[in-house]
């Protein structure tokens, strides 16, 4: 992004809506800010139409605050609840047809490498569990097999939330939803393990109940994708609307699932990625 064009024409400063003025005055671009500084700068997610207590909304806020290079990041989204928030995101983002997100991201990353050979441009897929583990699984896994330099982030609300509550491959066995009245008959898909075996150099599972750890994982995933190979982060983001709990109980719900042993944060890193990340993280300590 060329920040020199990010200026309001002087005689129109008085009529620009506040959100744009705030973004120009206290943007996070190029400043190396992160989750700890939330509240001190203008966030990249404006007012959004997601439900109160939506786990996905909190995860998205944290992901955006964790991007190592927001001004040169392009996000590829897919149909689903998160697609409703993307119009309020002040970053380049592309909406792809449901399930196609990793194919679109692969092409985009390759084009950006050709167009900007001397610049780092991060391509990050952010999509739902239905888009990632069910309908788009073909495109997701093929992009991993091909070792594309992209990061895939799944917002796992364990349902097809946007279409009124069908079970997804990521719903736990036995889950009863509005449109899964008889209960799900098979267990949750082990996506982190599938990712590890399919060529991802960095894999993590986390939730917004641990914001600092989430930040670290998102950064590691994106940095790994730049140099080593594809990366995958799965973020458990419970849905109060479809799982019928109170909005204020979202984080408690994650902790309860953790306590019961149904949700575990994890990290798989290949030796090559480990060495690469250690080098970067070591360098950072020296600064």
């Amino acid at each position: 992004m060329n920040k020199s064009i990010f200026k309001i024409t002087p005689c129109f400063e008085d009529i620009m809506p506040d959100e744009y003025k705030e973004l120009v005055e206290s943007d996070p671009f190029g400043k190396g800010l992160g989750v700890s500084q939330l509240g001190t700068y203008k966030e990249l997610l404006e007012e959004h139409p997601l439900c109160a207590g939506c786990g996905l909304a909190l995860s998205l806020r944290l992901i955006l605050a964790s991007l190592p290079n927001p001004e040169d990041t392009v996000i590829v989204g897919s149909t689903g609840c998160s697609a409703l928030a993307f119009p309020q995101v002040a970053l380049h983002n592309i909406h792809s047809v449901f399930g196609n997100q990793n194919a679109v991201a692969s092409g985009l990353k390759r084009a950006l490498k050709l167009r900007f050979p001397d610049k780092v441009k991060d391509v990050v897929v952010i999509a739902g569990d239905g888009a990632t583990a069910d309908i788009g699984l073909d495109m997701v896994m093929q992009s991993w097999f091909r070792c594309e330099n992209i990061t895939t982030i799944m917002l796992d609300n364990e349902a097809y939330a946007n279409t009124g509550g069908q079970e997804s491959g990521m719903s736990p066995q036995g889950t009863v939803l509005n449109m899964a009245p008889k209960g799900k008959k098979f267990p949750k898909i082990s996506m982190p393990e599938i990712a590890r075996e399919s060529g991802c150099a960095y894999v993590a599972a986390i939730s917004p109940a641990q914001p600092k750890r989430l930040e670290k994982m998102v950064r590691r995933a994106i940095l790994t994708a730049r140099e080593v190979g594809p990366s995958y982060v799965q973020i458990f983001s419970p849905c109060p609307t479809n799982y019928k709990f109170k909005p204020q109980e979202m984080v408690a719900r994650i902790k309860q699932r953790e306590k019961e042993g149904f949700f575990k944060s994890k990290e798989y890193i290949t030796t090559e990625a480990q060495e690469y990340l250690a080098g970067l993280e070591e360098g950072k300590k020296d600064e």
Partner: protein
Amino acid sequence: MLESKYQVLVGPEGYLPPAAASMGVTLPEKGQALVEGSIVSEEEAIEKIAQKILEAKNPFLFPGPLLLWDWKEGVAEKAKAVKELADLAGTRIIPMPDYRPKYPMINPAVEINPNHPNLTIWHNKIDFCLFIGVHCHYANVALKIIRGGTDCYTIALCGEAGHEDAMISLRDVGLAQLASLTEAVARLKGVAGK
């Protein structure tokens, strides 16, 4: 050349009005302009815009991103000329800072979005609007929605080839055309004031 019989008139024309181009309205050549679907001289169209602005009860200008963001040389100058026009004609200004399909989260009192421009027009009871600095593809979408669902008179001051879907459209608009329009408004105001 066959002239289209279709007139681009103030709405509401109904849900999904046709694109004027599909009804045979063609874009003007250099030095010409469009008034309600017919090709006229640029001077005639400028005079008509000035009349319409002054007749309107609640006229607004809608500057788009090409004018709101100071992204290249010459923009600030053009913006100043637009502001002068607004001050003289007594119109208010509501910006269209970008084209994100913000929905349903816009504040129609302070912004207009090309994907549902009708919200801003209804909320502010706008009966005349002038688009300037809006990229052509989004101007086309917004102008059609306005004609379909509101009774607002639309003007498009275009830096490129003009817009069939506006009731009046100039093409190749630069500082010279803006100055002529401001001058026409001043002159008509003077006449009206006598």
